[in-house]
Protein backbone atom coordinates (compact mmCIF):
# COMPACT_ATOMS: atom_id res chain seq x y z
CA UNK A 1 0.00 0.00 0.00
CA UNK A 2 1.20 3.47 -0.82
CA UNK A 3 1.11 6.16 1.86
CA UNK A 4 1.53 9.77 0.79
CA UNK A 5 1.55 13.10 2.58
CA UNK A 6 -0.28 15.76 0.59
CA UNK A 7 -0.27 19.43 1.57
CA UNK A 8 -3.19 21.71 0.78
CA UNK A 9 -1.94 25.22 0.04
CA UNK A 10 -3.65 28.44 -0.89
CA UNK A 11 -4.92 31.83 0.20
CA UNK A 12 -7.40 32.08 3.04
CA UNK A 13 -11.06 31.22 2.41
CA UNK A 14 -10.49 29.47 -0.91
CA UNK A 15 -11.97 26.23 0.41
CA UNK A 16 -9.01 24.03 1.34
CA UNK A 17 -10.68 22.71 4.47
CA UNK A 18 -14.00 22.33 2.65
CA UNK A 19 -12.39 20.25 -0.10
CA UNK A 20 -10.86 17.92 2.49
CA UNK A 21 -14.14 17.71 4.37
CA UNK A 22 -16.00 16.91 1.18
CA UNK A 23 -13.46 14.30 0.11
CA UNK A 24 -12.91 12.59 3.46
CA UNK A 25 -16.25 12.99 5.21
CA UNK A 26 -18.64 13.84 2.31
CA UNK A 27 -19.88 16.90 4.16
CA UNK A 28 -20.01 20.60 3.43
CA UNK A 29 -20.56 23.51 5.81
CA UNK A 30 -21.58 26.77 4.17
CA UNK A 31 -20.17 28.87 7.00
CA UNK A 32 -16.62 30.04 6.71
CA UNK A 33 -14.34 28.77 9.48
CA UNK A 34 -10.84 30.02 9.17
CA UNK A 35 -8.11 27.52 9.98
CA UNK A 36 -5.47 28.56 12.48
CA UNK A 37 -2.75 25.95 12.43
CA UNK A 38 -2.70 22.59 10.71
CA UNK A 39 -5.46 20.00 10.38
CA UNK A 40 -4.54 16.51 9.37
CA UNK A 41 -6.98 14.02 7.85
CA UNK A 42 -6.54 10.67 6.19
CA UNK A 43 -8.35 8.80 3.48
CA UNK A 44 -7.77 5.45 1.91
CA UNK A 45 -8.60 5.18 -1.76
CA UNK A 46 -7.92 2.76 -4.53
CA UNK A 47 -6.16 3.83 -7.68
CA UNK A 48 -5.92 1.28 -10.46
CA UNK A 49 -6.53 -1.51 -7.97
CA UNK A 50 -3.77 -0.31 -5.63
CA UNK A 51 -4.68 0.95 -2.16
CA UNK A 52 -3.33 4.45 -1.51
CA UNK A 53 -3.54 6.22 1.81
CA UNK A 54 -3.50 9.99 1.59
CA UNK A 55 -2.43 11.94 4.68
CA UNK A 56 -3.92 15.34 3.98
CA UNK A 57 -2.26 18.32 5.65
CA UNK A 58 -4.68 21.20 5.53
CA UNK A 59 -2.48 24.23 6.17
CA UNK A 60 -3.79 27.58 7.37
CA UNK A 61 -4.51 29.91 4.48
CA UNK A 62 -1.93 32.48 3.69
CA UNK A 63 -2.43 36.23 3.96
CA UNK A 64 -0.44 39.26 5.04
CA UNK A 65 -0.58 38.19 8.69
CA UNK A 66 0.13 34.51 8.29
CA UNK A 67 2.68 32.68 6.18
CA UNK A 68 2.97 28.97 5.57
CA UNK A 69 5.87 27.38 7.48
CA UNK A 70 8.21 25.55 5.15
CA UNK A 71 8.74 22.83 7.77
CA UNK A 72 5.12 21.74 7.40
CA UNK A 73 5.89 20.60 3.86
CA UNK A 74 8.67 18.28 4.97
CA UNK A 75 8.07 14.78 3.70
CA UNK A 76 5.24 15.81 1.40
CA UNK A 77 4.81 13.69 -1.72
CA UNK A 78 2.44 16.07 -3.46
CA UNK A 79 0.78 19.47 -3.30
CA UNK A 80 -2.75 20.60 -3.95
CA UNK A 81 -2.85 24.31 -4.63
CA UNK A 82 -6.27 25.83 -4.19
CA UNK A 83 -7.62 29.10 -5.59
CA UNK A 84 -11.06 30.66 -5.55
CA UNK A 85 -12.44 31.29 -9.02
CA UNK A 86 -14.31 34.29 -7.66
CA UNK A 87 -11.16 35.97 -6.31
CA UNK A 88 -8.44 36.41 -8.95
CA UNK A 89 -5.85 37.42 -6.35
CA UNK A 90 -6.04 33.92 -4.85
CA UNK A 91 -4.60 32.53 -8.09
CA UNK A 92 -1.63 34.86 -7.60
CA UNK A 93 -1.19 33.45 -4.10
CA UNK A 94 -1.31 29.88 -5.42
CA UNK A 95 1.29 30.69 -8.07
CA UNK A 96 3.45 32.37 -5.45
CA UNK A 97 3.22 29.35 -3.14
CA UNK A 98 4.15 27.06 -5.99
CA UNK A 99 7.20 29.21 -6.75
CA UNK A 100 8.25 29.32 -3.11
CA UNK A 101 7.85 25.68 -2.26
CA UNK A 102 8.04 23.77 -5.51
CA UNK A 103 9.74 25.98 -8.08
CA UNK A 104 11.55 23.04 -9.65
CA UNK A 105 8.31 21.01 -9.89
CA UNK A 106 10.03 18.30 -7.82
CA UNK A 107 6.71 17.43 -6.21
CA UNK A 108 3.66 16.52 -8.27
CA UNK A 109 1.01 19.19 -7.86
CA UNK A 110 -2.43 20.11 -9.10
CA UNK A 111 -4.39 23.33 -8.96
CA UNK A 112 -7.98 23.23 -7.75
CA UNK A 113 -10.02 26.18 -8.96
CA UNK A 114 -12.68 25.95 -6.34
CA UNK A 115 -16.27 27.23 -6.14
CA UNK A 116 -17.13 25.86 -9.59
CA UNK A 117 -20.79 26.00 -8.53
CA UNK A 118 -20.46 29.78 -9.12
CA UNK A 119 -18.64 29.35 -12.42
CA UNK A 120 -20.74 31.99 -14.17
CA UNK A 121 -19.37 34.56 -11.77
CA UNK A 122 -15.73 33.56 -11.93
CA UNK A 123 -13.33 36.42 -12.33
CA UNK A 124 -10.23 34.59 -13.52
CA UNK A 125 -9.65 35.11 -17.26
CA UNK A 126 -9.24 31.94 -19.30
CA UNK A 127 -5.99 33.15 -20.84
CA UNK A 128 -4.33 33.06 -17.41
CA UNK A 129 -5.31 29.44 -16.96
CA UNK A 130 -4.20 28.61 -20.48
CA UNK A 131 -0.82 30.14 -19.70
CA UNK A 132 -0.48 27.90 -16.64
CA UNK A 133 -1.52 24.81 -18.60
CA UNK A 134 1.20 25.52 -21.14
CA UNK A 135 3.65 25.60 -18.22
CA UNK A 136 2.56 22.08 -17.28
CA UNK A 137 -0.02 22.84 -14.62
CA UNK A 138 -2.93 20.44 -14.21
CA UNK A 139 -6.06 22.37 -13.31
CA UNK A 140 -9.32 21.04 -11.92
CA UNK A 141 -12.56 22.96 -11.53
CA UNK A 142 -13.91 21.87 -8.16
CA UNK A 143 -16.87 22.55 -5.94
CA UNK A 144 -16.72 21.52 -2.32
CA UNK A 145 -20.39 22.49 -2.17
CA UNK A 146 -21.70 19.96 -4.70
CA UNK A 147 -18.64 17.73 -4.85
CA UNK A 148 -17.94 18.17 -8.55
CA UNK A 149 -14.32 17.56 -9.48
CA UNK A 150 -13.30 16.70 -5.92
CA UNK A 151 -12.76 12.95 -6.28
CA UNK A 152 -10.99 13.47 -9.59
CA UNK A 153 -8.71 16.05 -8.01
CA UNK A 154 -7.50 13.75 -5.25
CA UNK A 155 -7.26 10.76 -7.57
CA UNK A 156 -5.14 12.78 -9.96
CA UNK A 157 -2.65 13.81 -7.29
CA UNK A 158 -2.65 10.22 -5.99
CA UNK A 159 -1.87 8.89 -9.45
CA UNK A 160 0.86 11.46 -9.98
CA UNK A 161 2.48 10.55 -6.67
CA UNK A 162 2.32 6.85 -7.48
CA UNK A 163 4.02 7.48 -10.81
CA UNK A 164 6.79 9.38 -9.06
CA UNK A 165 7.19 6.94 -6.15
Amino acid at each position, binding site marked *: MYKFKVCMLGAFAVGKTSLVQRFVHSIFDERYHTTL*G*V*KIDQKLLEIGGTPVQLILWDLAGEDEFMKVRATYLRGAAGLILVADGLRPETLDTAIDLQKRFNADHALPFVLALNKADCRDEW*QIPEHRLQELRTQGWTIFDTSALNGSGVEALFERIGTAMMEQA
Partner: protein
Amino acid sequence: MAQSYPPQIIDRILRITLESQHFAWLCIDGQGTLRNQGGALQDLGLPQWKIGENILDRALFLNGFLPLEEDCTSVPSVHLTDEVVVDVHLFRDGDRVWIILADRTEALEWQTVAHQKGNELRLLQEQLKRLERSCDQGIDFFEALEMLALQRNEDGSFMILRPVNRRFVELYPELLETPAELRPQLKFPFIENFLVDAEKLWQEPDNPRRLRSGPWIENDGSGQELPLEASALNWQGRNLLFIEMLDEAYQQNHSFLQIGREGELIKNMLEQEVRKRTSEIRRREEEIALRLVAAADSRDDGETGAHIRRLGLYSELMARHLGWPADKVEEIRIAAPMHDIGKIGIPDHILRKPSKLTDDEFEIMKMHALIGGKILENSETSLVQMARDIALYHHERWDGEGYPEGLKGEQIPEAARIVAIVDVFDALIHKRVYKDAMPLDRAIGILREGRGKQFDPRLFDLFLFLRKEMAQIARDYAS
Protein backbone atom coordinates in the same frame (compact mmCIF):
# COMPACT_ATOMS: atom_id res chain seq x y z
CA MET B 1 4.09 36.71 55.45
CA ALA B 2 4.03 36.09 51.73
CA GLN B 3 4.06 32.53 50.47
CA SER B 4 7.17 31.21 48.71
CA TYR B 5 7.06 28.99 45.66
CA PRO B 6 9.01 25.75 45.84
CA PRO B 7 12.29 26.15 43.90
CA GLN B 8 11.42 23.43 41.43
CA ILE B 9 8.19 25.20 40.59
CA ILE B 10 10.00 28.45 40.01
CA ASP B 11 12.47 26.61 37.87
CA ARG B 12 9.73 25.13 35.78
CA ILE B 13 7.96 28.43 35.41
CA LEU B 14 11.12 29.99 34.20
CA ARG B 15 11.84 27.21 31.77
CA ILE B 16 8.42 26.43 30.51
CA THR B 17 6.16 29.42 30.53
CA LEU B 18 8.48 31.91 28.95
CA GLU B 19 7.36 32.48 25.40
CA SER B 20 10.20 34.60 24.16
CA GLN B 21 13.25 33.03 22.64
CA HIS B 22 15.34 35.87 24.00
CA PHE B 23 15.22 36.19 27.74
CA ALA B 24 17.42 36.73 30.71
CA TRP B 25 16.98 35.40 34.16
CA LEU B 26 18.34 37.23 37.18
CA CYS B 27 18.07 37.01 40.94
CA ILE B 28 18.25 39.46 43.83
CA ASP B 29 19.42 37.68 46.93
CA GLY B 30 18.66 38.45 50.59
CA GLN B 31 21.46 41.01 50.70
CA GLY B 32 20.07 42.89 47.72
CA THR B 33 22.79 41.66 45.33
CA LEU B 34 21.76 41.22 41.71
CA ARG B 35 23.06 38.07 40.02
CA ASN B 36 22.72 36.92 36.45
CA GLN B 37 21.43 33.34 36.54
CA GLY B 38 20.69 32.40 32.97
CA GLY B 39 20.03 33.67 29.51
CA ALA B 40 22.03 36.67 28.43
CA LEU B 41 21.33 40.33 28.78
CA GLN B 42 23.35 40.79 25.65
CA ASP B 43 20.66 38.85 23.81
CA LEU B 44 18.29 41.60 24.80
CA GLY B 45 20.66 44.24 23.49
CA LEU B 46 21.54 45.28 27.05
CA PRO B 47 24.89 45.76 28.72
CA GLN B 48 25.34 43.65 31.84
CA TRP B 49 23.34 44.88 34.85
CA LYS B 50 21.61 47.66 33.01
CA ILE B 51 18.04 46.57 33.50
CA GLY B 52 16.41 49.80 34.55
CA GLU B 53 15.82 51.24 37.96
CA ASN B 54 12.08 50.77 37.87
CA ILE B 55 12.48 47.01 37.63
CA LEU B 56 15.05 46.87 40.42
CA ASP B 57 12.79 49.01 42.57
CA ARG B 58 9.95 46.56 42.10
CA ALA B 59 12.24 43.65 42.82
CA LEU B 60 13.43 45.34 45.99
CA PHE B 61 9.85 45.95 47.00
CA LEU B 62 9.15 42.34 46.40
CA ASN B 63 12.01 40.80 48.31
CA GLY B 64 11.00 42.57 51.47
CA PHE B 65 13.34 45.50 51.65
CA LEU B 66 10.28 47.57 51.12
CA PRO B 67 6.79 46.46 52.07
CA LEU B 68 4.77 45.07 49.19
CA GLU B 69 2.19 42.38 49.83
CA GLU B 70 2.72 40.41 46.62
CA ASP B 71 4.80 37.41 45.79
CA CYS B 72 4.64 37.65 42.05
CA THR B 73 4.04 40.50 39.71
CA SER B 74 4.41 41.40 36.06
CA VAL B 75 5.54 44.65 34.53
CA PRO B 76 4.64 44.21 30.88
CA SER B 77 6.38 45.95 28.03
CA VAL B 78 8.92 48.09 29.83
CA HIS B 79 11.09 50.26 27.59
CA LEU B 80 14.59 49.75 28.96
CA THR B 81 16.20 51.79 26.25
CA ASP B 82 14.90 53.48 23.12
CA GLU B 83 15.31 50.20 21.27
CA VAL B 84 14.80 47.49 23.85
CA VAL B 85 11.40 46.54 25.15
CA VAL B 86 10.95 43.69 27.60
CA ASP B 87 8.22 42.01 29.55
CA VAL B 88 9.25 41.61 33.15
CA HIS B 89 8.07 38.94 35.55
CA LEU B 90 9.12 38.97 39.21
CA PHE B 91 8.72 36.06 41.62
CA ARG B 92 9.57 35.91 45.30
CA ASP B 93 11.29 32.72 46.40
CA GLY B 94 12.08 32.84 50.10
CA ASP B 95 14.57 35.64 50.60
CA ARG B 96 15.31 35.85 46.88
CA VAL B 97 13.46 37.47 44.03
CA TRP B 98 13.72 36.13 40.53
CA ILE B 99 13.58 38.59 37.66
CA ILE B 100 12.77 37.35 34.19
CA LEU B 101 13.21 39.70 31.27
CA ALA B 102 11.63 38.55 28.03
CA ASP B 103 12.41 40.41 24.84
CA ARG B 104 9.31 41.88 23.26
CA THR B 105 10.92 44.36 20.92
CA GLU B 106 10.08 42.51 17.74
CA ALA B 107 6.64 41.57 18.96
CA LEU B 108 5.71 45.18 19.51
CA GLU B 109 6.57 45.97 15.94
CA TRP B 110 3.75 43.83 14.78
CA GLN B 111 0.51 45.02 16.21
CA THR B 112 -1.45 41.85 15.75
CA VAL B 113 1.19 39.75 17.39
CA ALA B 114 1.49 42.28 20.18
CA HIS B 115 -2.19 41.89 20.83
CA GLN B 116 -1.79 38.16 20.93
CA LYS B 117 1.16 38.45 23.31
CA GLY B 118 -0.94 40.63 25.58
CA ASN B 119 -3.54 37.91 25.70
CA GLU B 120 -0.91 35.32 26.35
CA LEU B 121 0.46 37.43 29.15
CA ARG B 122 -2.98 37.58 30.70
CA LEU B 123 -3.24 33.85 30.24
CA LEU B 124 0.12 33.43 31.92
CA GLN B 125 -1.09 35.47 34.85
CA GLU B 126 -4.19 33.32 35.06
CA GLN B 127 -2.02 30.24 34.93
CA LEU B 128 0.10 31.60 37.74
CA LYS B 129 -2.99 32.16 39.83
CA ARG B 130 -4.09 28.63 39.09
CA LEU B 131 -0.61 27.44 39.93
CA GLU B 132 -0.86 29.21 43.25
CA ARG B 133 -4.09 27.42 43.98
CA SER B 134 -2.61 24.14 42.71
CA CYS B 135 0.34 24.43 45.05
CA ASP B 136 -2.06 24.80 47.94
CA GLN B 137 -4.07 21.83 46.85
CA GLY B 138 -1.10 19.66 45.95
CA ILE B 139 -2.10 19.44 42.29
CA ASP B 140 0.72 19.13 39.80
CA PHE B 141 1.82 22.11 37.82
CA PHE B 142 1.34 20.36 34.48
CA GLU B 143 -2.16 19.31 35.40
CA ALA B 144 -3.03 22.92 36.07
CA LEU B 145 -1.49 24.08 32.82
CA GLU B 146 -3.15 21.41 30.66
CA MET B 147 0.24 20.49 29.43
CA LEU B 148 1.58 17.06 28.69
CA ALA B 149 5.27 16.83 29.62
CA LEU B 150 7.33 14.04 28.11
CA GLN B 151 10.97 13.19 28.42
CA ARG B 152 12.79 11.58 25.54
CA ASN B 153 14.33 8.19 26.25
CA GLU B 154 17.57 7.12 24.65
CA ASP B 155 15.78 4.79 22.22
CA GLY B 156 13.67 7.67 20.88
CA SER B 157 10.55 6.76 22.85
CA PHE B 158 9.19 9.09 25.54
CA MET B 159 8.22 8.77 29.19
CA ILE B 160 5.57 10.82 30.90
CA LEU B 161 6.42 13.30 33.59
CA ARG B 162 3.36 12.55 35.68
CA PRO B 163 0.57 13.17 36.46
CA VAL B 164 -1.33 13.53 33.24
CA ASN B 165 -4.16 15.87 32.50
CA ARG B 166 -7.46 14.01 32.09
CA ARG B 167 -8.18 15.54 28.68
CA PHE B 168 -4.91 14.19 27.33
CA VAL B 169 -5.85 10.70 28.47
CA GLU B 170 -9.10 10.98 26.52
CA LEU B 171 -7.21 12.13 23.46
CA TYR B 172 -4.31 9.72 23.82
CA PRO B 173 -5.27 6.63 25.88
CA GLU B 174 -1.83 5.08 25.33
CA LEU B 175 -0.56 7.53 27.94
CA LEU B 176 -1.80 5.21 30.65
CA GLU B 177 -1.06 1.97 28.82
CA THR B 178 2.65 2.50 28.11
CA PRO B 179 3.62 5.58 30.09
CA ALA B 180 7.34 4.82 29.97
CA GLU B 181 7.61 4.01 26.27
CA LEU B 182 5.36 6.32 24.39
CA ARG B 183 5.75 7.11 20.74
CA PRO B 184 3.49 10.12 20.15
CA GLN B 185 4.89 10.44 16.64
CA LEU B 186 2.98 7.30 15.71
CA LYS B 187 -0.25 8.74 17.07
CA PHE B 188 0.15 12.25 15.72
CA PRO B 189 1.68 12.78 12.24
CA PHE B 190 2.16 16.40 13.20
CA ILE B 191 4.47 15.40 16.06
CA GLU B 192 6.37 13.10 13.73
CA ASN B 193 7.13 16.12 11.59
CA PHE B 194 7.98 18.35 14.55
CA LEU B 195 10.38 15.84 16.08
CA VAL B 196 12.75 16.31 13.14
CA ASP B 197 13.34 19.88 14.33
CA ALA B 198 13.20 18.94 18.00
CA GLU B 199 15.94 16.33 17.55
CA LYS B 200 18.20 19.01 16.11
CA LEU B 201 17.62 21.13 19.19
CA TRP B 202 18.23 18.23 21.56
CA GLN B 203 21.56 17.57 19.89
CA GLU B 204 22.66 20.96 21.23
CA PRO B 205 22.38 20.48 25.02
CA ASP B 206 23.55 24.03 25.72
CA ASN B 207 20.93 25.59 23.51
CA PRO B 208 18.43 27.23 25.94
CA ARG B 209 15.96 27.96 23.17
CA ARG B 210 12.44 26.68 23.41
CA LEU B 211 11.31 25.44 20.02
CA ARG B 212 7.61 25.71 19.28
CA SER B 213 5.73 23.85 16.58
CA GLY B 214 2.91 26.27 15.93
CA PRO B 215 -0.67 25.12 16.49
CA TRP B 216 -2.27 22.01 15.10
CA ILE B 217 -5.75 20.67 15.53
CA GLU B 218 -6.85 17.22 16.60
CA ASN B 219 -10.32 15.84 16.84
CA ASP B 220 -11.07 14.87 20.42
CA GLY B 221 -13.22 11.91 19.34
CA SER B 222 -16.53 13.63 20.05
CA GLY B 223 -16.29 15.80 16.94
CA GLN B 224 -14.79 18.74 18.82
CA GLU B 225 -11.61 20.29 17.54
CA LEU B 226 -8.79 20.40 20.02
CA PRO B 227 -6.03 22.92 19.29
CA LEU B 228 -2.61 21.81 20.46
CA GLU B 229 0.94 23.02 20.26
CA ALA B 230 4.16 21.14 20.86
CA SER B 231 7.44 22.54 22.10
CA ALA B 232 10.87 21.12 22.74
CA LEU B 233 13.41 22.13 25.35
CA ASN B 234 16.76 21.11 26.81
CA TRP B 235 16.68 21.11 30.58
CA GLN B 236 19.44 19.91 32.84
CA GLY B 237 20.63 17.40 30.27
CA ARG B 238 17.16 16.13 29.59
CA ASN B 239 15.27 16.34 26.28
CA LEU B 240 11.76 17.49 27.02
CA LEU B 241 8.73 17.53 24.78
CA PHE B 242 5.65 19.46 25.85
CA ILE B 243 2.22 19.32 24.31
CA GLU B 244 -0.13 22.08 25.37
CA MET B 245 -3.83 22.54 24.93
CA LEU B 246 -4.30 25.99 23.51
CA ASP B 247 -7.91 26.49 24.40
CA GLU B 248 -8.21 30.06 25.63
CA ALA B 249 -5.41 31.90 23.88
CA TYR B 250 -6.00 29.94 20.69
CA GLN B 251 -9.72 30.66 20.65
CA GLN B 252 -9.05 34.36 21.11
CA ASN B 253 -6.53 34.41 18.29
CA HIS B 254 -8.85 32.35 16.16
CA SER B 255 -11.67 34.81 16.76
CA PHE B 256 -9.48 37.76 15.82
CA LEU B 257 -8.37 36.00 12.66
CA GLN B 258 -11.91 34.91 11.79
CA ILE B 259 -13.25 38.45 12.20
CA GLY B 260 -10.35 39.94 10.27
CA ARG B 261 -10.70 37.53 7.39
CA GLU B 262 -14.47 37.79 7.24
CA GLY B 263 -14.01 41.55 7.01
CA GLU B 264 -11.52 41.06 4.22
CA LEU B 265 -13.94 38.77 2.37
CA ILE B 266 -16.77 41.29 2.67
CA LYS B 267 -14.45 43.98 1.35
CA ASN B 268 -13.51 41.71 -1.57
CA MET B 269 -17.16 40.99 -2.29
CA LEU B 270 -18.04 44.68 -2.29
CA GLU B 271 -15.13 45.51 -4.57
CA GLN B 272 -16.19 42.73 -6.88
CA GLU B 273 -19.74 44.02 -6.95
CA VAL B 274 -18.50 47.52 -7.76
CA ARG B 275 -16.32 46.10 -10.54
CA LYS B 276 -19.24 44.09 -11.88
CA ARG B 277 -21.62 47.03 -11.90
CA THR B 278 -19.04 49.35 -13.38
CA SER B 279 -18.45 46.81 -16.08
CA GLU B 280 -22.19 46.58 -16.79
CA ILE B 281 -22.42 50.37 -17.06
CA ARG B 282 -19.42 50.38 -19.38
CA ARG B 283 -21.00 47.69 -21.56
CA ARG B 284 -24.18 49.73 -21.74
CA GLU B 285 -22.26 52.88 -22.62
CA GLU B 286 -20.31 51.01 -25.23
CA GLU B 287 -23.38 49.57 -26.86
CA ILE B 288 -25.14 52.94 -26.98
CA ALA B 289 -22.00 54.60 -28.36
CA LEU B 290 -21.48 51.95 -31.00
CA ARG B 291 -25.08 52.04 -32.14
CA LEU B 292 -25.10 55.82 -32.38
CA VAL B 293 -21.79 55.89 -34.19
CA ALA B 294 -22.96 53.14 -36.56
CA ALA B 295 -26.11 55.17 -37.30
CA ALA B 296 -24.05 58.28 -37.99
CA ASP B 297 -21.60 56.35 -40.15
CA SER B 298 -24.29 54.57 -42.13
CA ARG B 299 -24.17 57.41 -44.65
CA ASP B 300 -20.54 56.65 -45.35
CA ASP B 301 -20.00 53.60 -47.53
CA GLY B 302 -16.44 53.30 -46.24
CA GLU B 303 -17.37 52.90 -42.56
CA THR B 304 -18.98 49.76 -41.28
CA GLY B 305 -20.07 48.58 -37.83
CA ALA B 306 -17.26 46.04 -37.91
CA HIS B 307 -14.68 48.74 -38.70
CA ILE B 308 -15.59 50.86 -35.70
CA ARG B 309 -15.66 47.80 -33.44
CA ARG B 310 -12.19 46.76 -34.65
CA LEU B 311 -10.84 50.26 -34.12
CA GLY B 312 -11.90 50.10 -30.48
CA LEU B 313 -10.23 46.72 -30.02
CA TYR B 314 -6.96 47.66 -31.75
CA SER B 315 -6.76 50.78 -29.59
CA GLU B 316 -7.56 48.85 -26.44
CA LEU B 317 -4.76 46.37 -27.21
CA MET B 318 -2.21 49.13 -27.67
CA ALA B 319 -3.31 51.05 -24.57
CA ARG B 320 -3.03 47.90 -22.46
CA HIS B 321 0.51 47.27 -23.68
CA LEU B 322 1.37 50.87 -22.94
CA GLY B 323 0.45 50.19 -19.32
CA TRP B 324 -2.56 52.47 -19.21
CA PRO B 325 -4.81 52.05 -16.13
CA ALA B 326 -7.63 49.55 -16.68
CA ASP B 327 -10.35 52.21 -16.69
CA LYS B 328 -8.54 54.21 -19.39
CA VAL B 329 -8.03 51.06 -21.46
CA GLU B 330 -11.78 50.50 -21.36
CA GLU B 331 -12.42 54.11 -22.24
CA ILE B 332 -10.36 54.06 -25.40
CA ARG B 333 -12.14 50.91 -26.55
CA ILE B 334 -15.39 52.86 -26.40
CA ALA B 335 -14.06 56.27 -27.46
CA ALA B 336 -12.00 55.23 -30.50
CA PRO B 337 -15.07 54.19 -32.55
CA MET B 338 -16.31 57.81 -32.31
CA HIS B 339 -13.30 59.14 -34.23
CA ASP B 340 -15.30 59.96 -37.38
CA ILE B 341 -18.52 61.08 -35.71
CA GLY B 342 -18.02 64.53 -37.26
CA LYS B 343 -18.77 63.08 -40.70
CA ILE B 344 -22.39 63.52 -39.75
CA GLY B 345 -21.92 67.16 -40.81
CA ILE B 346 -20.38 66.41 -44.21
CA PRO B 347 -22.74 66.61 -47.23
CA ASP B 348 -23.65 63.35 -48.94
CA HIS B 349 -22.24 64.30 -52.32
CA ILE B 350 -18.79 64.62 -50.79
CA LEU B 351 -18.99 61.87 -48.21
CA ARG B 352 -20.28 59.26 -50.67
CA LYS B 353 -18.33 60.38 -53.71
CA PRO B 354 -16.82 57.21 -55.23
CA SER B 355 -13.99 59.05 -57.00
CA LYS B 356 -11.16 61.26 -55.76
CA LEU B 357 -12.19 64.47 -53.99
CA THR B 358 -11.27 67.84 -55.44
CA ASP B 359 -9.17 70.16 -53.30
CA ASP B 360 -12.24 72.13 -52.27
CA GLU B 361 -14.16 68.98 -51.46
CA PHE B 362 -11.24 67.70 -49.44
CA GLU B 363 -11.17 70.95 -47.45
CA ILE B 364 -14.82 70.37 -46.62
CA MET B 365 -14.13 66.73 -45.75
CA LYS B 366 -11.38 67.81 -43.34
CA MET B 367 -14.04 69.72 -41.42
CA HIS B 368 -15.26 66.42 -39.96
CA ALA B 369 -12.52 66.54 -37.32
CA LEU B 370 -13.61 69.96 -36.10
CA ILE B 371 -17.29 68.99 -36.23
CA GLY B 372 -16.57 65.83 -34.24
CA GLY B 373 -14.63 67.83 -31.68
CA LYS B 374 -17.49 70.30 -31.42
CA ILE B 375 -20.11 67.57 -30.94
CA LEU B 376 -18.13 66.05 -28.07
CA GLU B 377 -16.69 69.17 -26.41
CA ASN B 378 -17.37 70.53 -22.91
CA SER B 379 -18.11 67.20 -21.32
CA GLU B 380 -17.19 66.49 -17.71
CA THR B 381 -17.03 62.76 -18.45
CA SER B 382 -13.51 61.50 -19.02
CA LEU B 383 -14.77 59.01 -21.63
CA VAL B 384 -16.34 61.78 -23.73
CA GLN B 385 -13.29 63.99 -23.20
CA MET B 386 -11.12 61.23 -24.63
CA ALA B 387 -13.57 60.71 -27.51
CA ARG B 388 -13.39 64.44 -28.23
CA ASP B 389 -9.57 64.36 -28.35
CA ILE B 390 -9.65 61.41 -30.71
CA ALA B 391 -12.31 62.89 -33.00
CA LEU B 392 -10.56 66.27 -33.15
CA TYR B 393 -6.95 65.14 -33.45
CA HIS B 394 -6.83 61.76 -35.18
CA HIS B 395 -5.73 63.41 -38.44
CA GLU B 396 -2.90 65.33 -36.81
CA ARG B 397 0.56 64.11 -37.81
CA TRP B 398 3.69 63.53 -35.71
CA ASP B 399 5.62 65.96 -38.00
CA GLY B 400 3.02 68.71 -37.55
CA GLU B 401 1.69 68.51 -41.11
CA GLY B 402 -1.76 67.23 -40.15
CA TYR B 403 -5.07 68.94 -39.49
CA PRO B 404 -7.10 70.67 -38.06
CA GLU B 405 -4.59 72.46 -35.78
CA GLY B 406 -1.22 71.29 -37.07
CA LEU B 407 -0.22 69.92 -33.67
CA LYS B 408 3.17 68.23 -33.52
CA GLY B 409 4.70 65.29 -31.62
CA GLU B 410 3.45 64.86 -28.09
CA GLN B 411 1.23 67.92 -28.38
CA ILE B 412 -1.18 65.44 -29.93
CA PRO B 413 -3.04 63.47 -27.26
CA GLU B 414 -1.73 59.89 -27.05
CA ALA B 415 -5.20 58.41 -27.62
CA ALA B 416 -5.44 60.29 -30.93
CA ARG B 417 -1.93 59.15 -31.93
CA ILE B 418 -2.96 55.54 -31.33
CA VAL B 419 -6.16 55.87 -33.38
CA ALA B 420 -4.25 57.60 -36.18
CA ILE B 421 -2.23 54.42 -36.72
CA VAL B 422 -4.94 51.81 -36.37
CA ASP B 423 -7.47 53.76 -38.44
CA VAL B 424 -5.16 53.78 -41.46
CA PHE B 425 -4.12 50.16 -40.83
CA ASP B 426 -7.72 48.97 -40.82
CA ALA B 427 -8.65 51.01 -43.88
CA LEU B 428 -5.72 49.55 -45.85
CA ILE B 429 -6.42 45.89 -45.12
CA HIS B 430 -10.18 46.06 -45.81
CA LYS B 431 -12.11 46.47 -49.01
CA ARG B 432 -13.94 49.70 -49.76
CA VAL B 433 -16.23 50.60 -52.67
CA TYR B 434 -13.35 52.48 -54.21
CA LYS B 435 -10.51 49.99 -53.50
CA ASP B 436 -9.62 46.38 -52.77
CA ALA B 437 -8.26 45.01 -49.52
CA MET B 438 -4.47 45.09 -49.26
CA PRO B 439 -2.40 42.12 -48.01
CA LEU B 440 -1.15 42.58 -44.47
CA ASP B 441 2.56 42.78 -45.34
CA ARG B 442 2.00 45.36 -48.01
CA ALA B 443 -0.17 47.43 -45.69
CA ILE B 444 2.53 47.28 -43.02
CA GLY B 445 5.09 48.37 -45.61
CA ILE B 446 3.04 51.43 -46.49
CA LEU B 447 2.45 52.27 -42.84
CA ARG B 448 6.21 51.98 -42.19
CA GLU B 449 6.79 54.92 -44.49
CA GLY B 450 4.77 57.05 -42.08
CA ARG B 451 6.90 56.19 -39.02
CA GLY B 452 8.21 59.40 -37.48
CA LYS B 453 6.35 61.46 -40.10
CA GLN B 454 2.67 60.70 -39.94
CA PHE B 455 2.88 58.43 -36.88
CA ASP B 456 4.48 58.56 -33.45
CA PRO B 457 7.56 56.29 -33.91
CA ARG B 458 7.33 54.77 -30.41
CA LEU B 459 3.66 53.91 -30.87
CA PHE B 460 4.30 52.64 -34.35
CA ASP B 461 6.98 50.26 -33.03
CA LEU B 462 4.50 48.97 -30.50
CA PHE B 463 1.96 48.52 -33.28
CA LEU B 464 4.50 46.44 -35.22
CA PHE B 465 5.22 44.39 -32.10
CA LEU B 466 1.49 43.67 -31.83
CA ARG B 467 0.89 43.06 -35.52
CA LYS B 468 -0.08 39.40 -35.01
CA GLU B 469 -2.69 40.27 -32.41
CA MET B 470 -3.91 43.13 -34.64
CA ALA B 471 -4.30 40.73 -37.55
CA GLN B 472 -6.18 38.32 -35.28
CA ILE B 473 -8.65 41.05 -34.31
CA ALA B 474 -9.10 41.86 -37.99
CA ARG B 475 -9.93 38.20 -38.67
CA ASP B 476 -12.19 37.77 -35.64
CA TYR B 477 -14.23 40.88 -36.50
CA ALA B 478 -14.13 40.67 -40.27
CA SER B 479 -17.78 41.60 -40.64
